[in-house]
């Protein structure tokens, strides 16, 4: 079942075109979004998070066409987003911060207290729930950011570099959370850490130079690599091979 559909997407910043005629289909599950720096991962995330208006193209999120204001609002209610540059209010406690975003996402007031506690617990911050955000470490802040993203049980979850700053143990826990979330939601995870993709993602999308150059299973990406390709792990070799192939292939 396709729940995110992008058709003929064009996005530019001034004269620089980031995407031109991009098509993308995402269904329920955890989708990795890979690509080198400047490939357009964050731009795609921002378009799907409805904070960047595309120049052209059709974007449908969870069956809602985001060009329609009332449909956009419906889609946003079911959206969770963790941007790459995650800002926060330092004087808020973790609980207050997540609670505030639950309100911004128009959750029914009666559901908020329980949902907030559940989200904080899922990211392992329950013991620090009443600490102010300014007293948290970088990894804890990231987890608080994930908590606000999942507080409304989103059907579309967009996480831009969610594992940045997490220690190995936290990353393992986070991957488990991703797998759990991906059971009934579309989860798109932008990352540079290909091992996260292998461990947690059901599908992989690879963008480069504003194009979607690969979409498939992690095993298919692994299989694309050979022993001669650069990389320390099978998926890194697959990643390198696909990128090199895309760059040498005629457009």
């Amino acid at each position: 079942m396709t729940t995110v559909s992008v058709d003929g997407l064009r996005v530019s910043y001034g004269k620089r075109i980031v995407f031109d005629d991009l098509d993308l289909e995402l269904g329920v599950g955890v989708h990795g979004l890979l690509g080198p720096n400047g490939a357009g991962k964050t731009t795609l995330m921002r378009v799907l998070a409805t904070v960047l208006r595309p120049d052209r193209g059709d974007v449908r999120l969870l069956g809602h066409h985001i060009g329609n204001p009332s449909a956009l609002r419906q889609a946003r209610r079911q959206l969770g987003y963790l941007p790459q540059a995650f800002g926060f209010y330092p004087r808020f406690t973790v609980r207050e911060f997540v609670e505030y975003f639950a309100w911004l996402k128009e959750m029914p007031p009666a559901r908020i207290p329980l949902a907030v506690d559940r989200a904080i617990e899922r990211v392992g911050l329950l013991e620090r729930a009443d600490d102010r955000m300014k007293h948290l470490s970088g990894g804890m802040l990231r987890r608080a950011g994930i908590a606000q993203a999942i507080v409304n049980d989103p059907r579309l979850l967009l996480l831009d570099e969610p594992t940045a700053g997490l220690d190995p143990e936290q990353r393992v826990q986070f991957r488990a959370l991703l797998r759990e979330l991906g059971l009934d939601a579309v989860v798109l995870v932008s990352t540079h850490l290909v091992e996260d993709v292998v461990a947690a993602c059901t599908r992989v999308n690879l963008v480069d130079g504003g194009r979607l150059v690969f979409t498939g299973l992690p095993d298919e990406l692994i299989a694309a690599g050979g022993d001669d390709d650069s990389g320390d792990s099978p998926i890194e070799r697959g990643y390198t091979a696909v990128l090199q192939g895309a760059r040498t292939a005629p457009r």
Partner: protein
Amino acid sequence: MRRALRVELRRGTAPFAAAAMLGAGVWMLAVHPDDWAGRWAGLANYLRTSLLILCALMIAAGAWQSGRERRRDIDELIASTSRPGWQPLAVAWLAVTVAGVAGLLVAFAGAAVLIARVATYAGGGWWWTLTVGVLALAAAAAVGVLVGRLVPLRVAAPIAGLTTYLGLGIITYWDGTPAAWLSPVYGGWAVYSLVPNRVTALQAAFLAALTVLLLAAAARQRRAVLLAGGLAVAVAVPITTGPGTHRLPADPAAVELVCTSSGPQVCLSRINAFLIDDVTAVVQPILARLDGIPGAPRRAVDQVAQPAGPSIERDDGAVWLNLDYQSTALGGLASRKSLRADFRQVTRARCEDPSGTRSIDQRVHRTDTLATDWMLDEAAAPDDEPLTRLRALPEPAQRTWFAAYLDAAHRCDIPALIRLGEQS
């Protein structure tokens, strides 16, 4: 909404706004207790005068609050949420407004307790003056919210506050014109003046429309901007084309006289009547000293009851007391010296030469001073020979001298006044 408001009240700019307004309120009340003490209308008027500084603080607080999303790099995350943008903005504005007003009201509540102990007049629509002041603070916070949204600089808040202070200060120079009603800051008119109900209602409507206009502009709600803008203009027109702020009528109930029933009569307006015991203690001995002297005042009356006219008439038997700034914070008389100085109107010869200017003959002035010192029973300086000589005369002769002085002063008989000064 309540949940978000509660969080903003605890963690946003609101607590700082409350502290700043409390501090500013206490400071302003402490600096000029004579402006408000003992009178409810004085307290309400003083709040409106204080808005010169308080509005500046509220604008700075509003700007700091609404610039928070950009400062904390969280605007994109908020933009991805479904709640319409005007709602978090309204909550942030409401939190700053509620906290700022609460902080100020705590300070003014302290003053209100002091006033409640002594006040002798509670009418005059002061409550509405206060209410419009609160609406002005809400509008100021909305100005700040708009500034914070439009100007992506950290210094926007302090600069907006300073600019407001200067702007409102400049507008006070237009006091007297109808447009001055659009400024929330009162020019400091008398406590017994009555602002017409129509003007108060229009001011309230204008400030409410302005608040909605500013918030709608900050939230980019074009339709609401047009509606509120239209309403603000519609309300502003009758204000700016109506009567100005000068010559406000006196509140008849506030200026109604309350008089002593024993000794030489002392009459104060009802709004100043809380001072009557303190004033009587100062004034009656002077009146008693003058009792029976032809041409001398027989009673002392609050100046607010003075008939309108270009000058104070001396021969109506009354000396007029200016009590506008004559109260301590606890409701006592602020300055006996100033009150006694009001009696100088009795001993000031108003003689004009043919060119129409007041005589400044120094010899006449010395005679006036001598008469004043005798009337007020001032202690004579060692080198003050005229006063010493006058005091050395028998009491009936002293009173005769003073009666002759009043007669000469009344007739503007300059040679007689000079002679009286030299013969004493």
